């Protein structure tokens, strides 16, 4: 392998590289400390993976619809969240105020996309439930094409380049999040801690939605046996609308979370990236399983951080290691246990 492509790839991977990791391995190798750092970063990445995937699994669990527009909605969420922050955060806005605006953006984007998702379910997906799942995949894929192109048109009209990351909202991240915190003797990036906090918040909210609300009960019952739920007199169609809306809203929340992350960042290309990684997480965890998504996000996050560490320290010189590993995880899981870690065998089989 020649040196030139490696240098190029390393430069590309630069935002992924944690300078601290490089330093620590350069000096006296404190194995335990390095492991702790890799683990901490893995958990940070896991929080992101969980947030972008949980909506997908929720929708699939109840409705058996693999929503190919999930990534496109996350992309819209990143831009809408970015818009709120750019509008309300100035140069001298305080840290606390910025974080407050972030939460306002989160809530606003969730509300808007939930409503849009529900409308989409009623208008487009409801007419084709009686067809094979293929057609729902096709339809949502078509919708994602439309969303992406509309996003490109709007962005171009506003003078924003659609493919590179939109820097303005990324610049609004408060300085506090850019630094590191000593945690168990390891310097952990605060952005990761923030992402873990949001991820945990989303996890708790979804868990509460599933276990404490009526619709959650419908979802859990519906993913076991939809016909039985209908036989008990529950309006599954209405539940479908609500769940599809919430799933869409969660995708957008994932997008808002990605907005400050230099690895992702608002860009139209986010659409396909989020979709592919969400698929991996959801399939590994088992389609339709909340616990599975949580565990799978952990596995993928840690695999990501370990492989990133292997590459940045030069142990492995292959730049695509991280992505290859993640998709290999998907393939291997499908070979040894197609229903995923916590999946039910019948779900999505046909």
């Amino acid at each position: 392998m020649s040196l030139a492509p490696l240098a190029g790839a390393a430069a590309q991977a630069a935002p992924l590289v944690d300078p601290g990791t490089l330093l620590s391995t350069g000096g006296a190798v404190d194995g335990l400390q390095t492991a702790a750092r890799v683990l901490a970063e893995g958990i940070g990445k896991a929080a992101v993976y969980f947030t972008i995937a949980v909506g997908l699994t929720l929708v699939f669990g109840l409705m058996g619809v693999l929503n190919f527009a999930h990534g496109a909605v996350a992309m819209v969420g990143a831009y809408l969240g970015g818009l709120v922050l750019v509008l309300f955060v100035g140069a001298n806005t305080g840290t606390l105020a910025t974080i407050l605006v972030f939460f306002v953006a989160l809530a606003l984007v969730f509300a808007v996309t939930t409503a849009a998702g529900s409308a989409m379910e009623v208008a487009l997906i409801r007419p084709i439930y009686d067809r094979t799942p293929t057609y729902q995949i096709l339809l949502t894929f078509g919708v994602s094409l439309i969303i992406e192109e509309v996003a490109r048109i709007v962005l171009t009209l506003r003078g924003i380049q659609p493919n590179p990351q939109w820097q303005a909202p990324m610049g609004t991240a408060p300085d506090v999040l850019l630094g590191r915190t000593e945690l168990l003797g390891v310097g952990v990036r605060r952005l990761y801690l923030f992402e873990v906090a949001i991820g945990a918040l989303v996890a708790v909210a979804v868990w509460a939605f599933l276990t404490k609300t009526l619709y959650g009960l419908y979802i859990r019952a519906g993913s076991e046996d939809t016909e039985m739920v209908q036989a008990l007199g529950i309006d599954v169609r209405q539940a479908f609308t609500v769940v599809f809306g919430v799933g869409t809203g969660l995708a957008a929340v994932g997008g808002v979370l990605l907005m400050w992350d230099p690895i992702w960042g608002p860009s139209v290309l986010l659409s396909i990236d989020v979709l592919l990684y969400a698929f991996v997480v959801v399939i590994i965890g088992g389609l339709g399983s909340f616990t599975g998504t949580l565990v799978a996000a952990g596995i993928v996050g840690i695999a990501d951080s370990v492989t990133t560490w292997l590459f940045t320290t030069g142990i492995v010189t292959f730049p695509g290691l991280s992505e290859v590993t993640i998709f290999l995880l998907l393939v291997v899981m499908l070979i040894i246990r197609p229903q995923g870690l916590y999946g039910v065998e019948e779900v999505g089989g046909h």
Partner: protein
Amino acid sequence: MAISDPDSGADADAPAGDTDAPAVETDAPVDEADPIPPSTATGGLREYLRDHAVHAAVIVGFVLYPLAYEALLATPAAPFAEAFLPAITFMVVVLYMGLFAMSFDFISGYTGYLSFGHAAFYGTGAYFVVLAANGQIPGVPGGTPFMITLLLGAVVAGLLALVIGSVSFRLTGVYFAMITLGFAQVIYELIRSWGYVSTNPTEGATVSGDALAIGVPFVDALSLDVGRLTGESVENLLGLGIDLSTTVVSYYALGIVVVVCYFAMQRILHSPFGRVMIAIRENEERARAVGYPTYRFKLAAFAISGFFGAIAGGVFAAYSRSVAPDGTFYFLVTADALITTIIGGFGTLAGPVFGTLFTQGLEDVLSTESGGVATLLREGLPESVLQADLFGISLELFVNTAVDGRAPLYLGIIFVLFVLFVPNGILGTLRDRLGGTVGKRLPDHLRRYLR
């Protein structure tokens, strides 16, 4: 609703199967008592031509199109022809993407297994051809004729399909789609970072040597160099005063490959093997119960599909002379085939070509590369209209951003409408209307109207 029924693909085909019977009956009186149907060479040929009248008409249409297009450009209607008819460069894309979509339809439309990683085979064919041309494939010397490397690449892709299929066909439905997608993404990421391909693997590789030729290997007179810049051009064809540009020559050369591949796939689908593929789509358990080893049939069908997918990738690489991971191995390449297949007709084989023609036509109309609506509007409308204000945006800006190069948007909308209202696609719906394949039913319908 019969149309929205998932089995409706079968409806489109079932009558086709039924119409086989009358066709055979009409054979009998023509061929007297001879038990072997093609009693004389001319009789067999006439029979063959009658059966393939629609095929022939479509091929003649494709052959005449460049000449008609060039002729139109010399008339006063030129601006409109440029704006609304696909340029030859787009027609070349129709050929190789149409072939790729057909190979996708071959497995997905006929066995019902959605091959979401089909780009892996397209990419394998494309990369094999380019690397072989650069002498980077061990055992394949640099000067090996393109036709041979094309076939070798296709065989490699077929073997790759066997490997991927051997584990993937244990799964069904969404899981099959996901595992094939997973495989393709793994290969995509590997190729993207594989320094052996070129010094900058994310950008792909380029053919450094001579033009690649389609035709009979080692016979210069019977082969045509392809490529927009490196291809052959023909002046004063057969003394008819017709000049053919490099693009048009490439179009014909690629067209020959596509026609051969189409008839090969069509032959396979109409053989007992193809009937088993349809049986697997309709009811795999029953097919197995009847005694067909469905797993092996699926694997073989997947390998054949991968083979032809790689041919599509190979001719694309020969024409464009460069390959990039994003244009070959990426998920969106499969998505293109999926879109055109749905628009053209799922499980119709020829449909994807018409779907590609439709999407490429749209792309041409909405791009400014060769005329296009945007150019027509910009040049045709007076300045005052162009600067007119629409919600704070001038019409010109609107045309620039919402029309120019915006084919994917309208394609998305049309695609969604097709999924909702025309799930059988163009050709599938046409077959439903005619009650059989177009080739078999259209002559009868025409006769009825002409009588």
